[in-house]
């Protein structure tokens, strides 16, 4: 169906992407606190999805389809990075006042009110 080099590239890149998803999930479950878990999540977000989109590029049916895939890739890269930053800041602010719990006491400035 597809040329061998293209199929090979897809297989390698998609597999690598899946590996990052596995790593991200394991990290999300096993890491000790919110910040480190966020670190794990961002790996799945950026590298996992990025590699899979790159891997699917050779399989795209048309040039416009490939361009759309690239647009998705760009969008998720930028969005993933900024969302991670937003969340990290909210976690940081929510956790920082001594003795205050993130989801309750600091409701006037951080994270959710």
């Amino acid at each position, binding site marked *: 169906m597809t040329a061998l080099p293209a199929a090979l590239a897809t297989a390698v890149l998609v597999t690598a992407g899946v590996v990052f998803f596995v790593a991200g999930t394991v990290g999300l479950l096993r890491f000790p606190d919110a910040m480190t878990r966020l670190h794990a999540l961002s790996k799945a977000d950026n590298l996992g999805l990025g590699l899979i989109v790159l891997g699917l590029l050779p399989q795209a049916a048309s040039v416009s389809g490939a361009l759309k895939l690239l647009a998705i890739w760009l*969008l998720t890269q930028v969005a993933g990075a*900024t969302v991670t930053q*937003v969340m990290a*800041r909210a976690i940081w602010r929510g956790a920082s006042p001594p003795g205050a*719990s993130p*989801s309750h*006491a600091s409701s006037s400035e951080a994270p959710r009110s």
Partner: protein
Amino acid sequence: MSATLVADGVLVLLLLGLALRATAAADAFAAVVAFVAFGLLLALAWMRLHAGDVALTEAAIGSGVTGAVLVAAAMRLPPTLPHIPPEADPEAAFPKAMPGGAARPEVMPGWAARPKVILGEAAIRLAALLLSGLVTACLAGLVLWTTGPSHSQAATALRHLPELGLYNAVTGVLMAYRGFDTLMEKIVLLLALVGVWSLARDTVWGGRPFPAAIPAQGGAVTLIARLLPPIGIVVAVYLLWVSAEEPGGAFQGGAILAAMWLLVLLAGLRQAPLLGSRLVRWTVAVGPAIFLAAGFAGFAFPAGFLSYPPGVAKAMIILIEFPLLLSIAVILGLLVTGPAERRP
């Protein structure tokens, strides 16, 4: 084939698990998170059912915009039941120590003191369980029992599409074959908006939504709110444009536009509009009004209400759909922001 079945099986189990989580979670916020995740996966299921248009609608409206409404409500309401008997200490009812609220009580604390109610409650739960179990069993039996192809109106719906210049059958059904439904649905949206607006206190009528102005955020939120809306606008117009041939449409595009607008409001880059302003009222009304006018224009031709004259059908549909896109976006956004809560 079996790989598809495995993927679908995982998807179905995930859907059911998230639905259970959304009903069983003690914490309202956790339930809403599960619901949004559920909607996202449901879009995948719609894709697998070869319903791309529905998948887009579910993702944008069923999960995205509905999720925003529910999150806003979950954050303004107490996490569990606020109904505390006078002697109970609110601190004890809602311990503040656990960040995620893991220690919050599952049920209303007052119930523990009322054994009679517990009995009644158990009976109600059992009856509800039996009833919903019965409904599920009947439906499941129906699904397993009837396996053949179902009666289809696909051919009927397709018949007139070429004359309309449309190749996406779902758009064709929405705009022509059952255009009356679509018109009515706009009216329902408008009525819902009127209903939401009517809940404002008299003193703030015509004012702005949200109890106070949202301050500008700065940082990454502002960056996203500046970066994403231009992309979102392109995607929304694209979705409307391709809806003649591929999955897409005014609702899906409108929901994306609404999400982008809400993003800008959340970042504090713009203030929510005065609900009494003439601009808001006109924007909300223009799409449905043009649709209605086009419907009445159908009387000028032999076919009657909501019929499109041959030859100019496609131009007319585009003329109807672009104002609709704008109106839908504003209506959806205003349904999320809610009634006026501060003075004009």
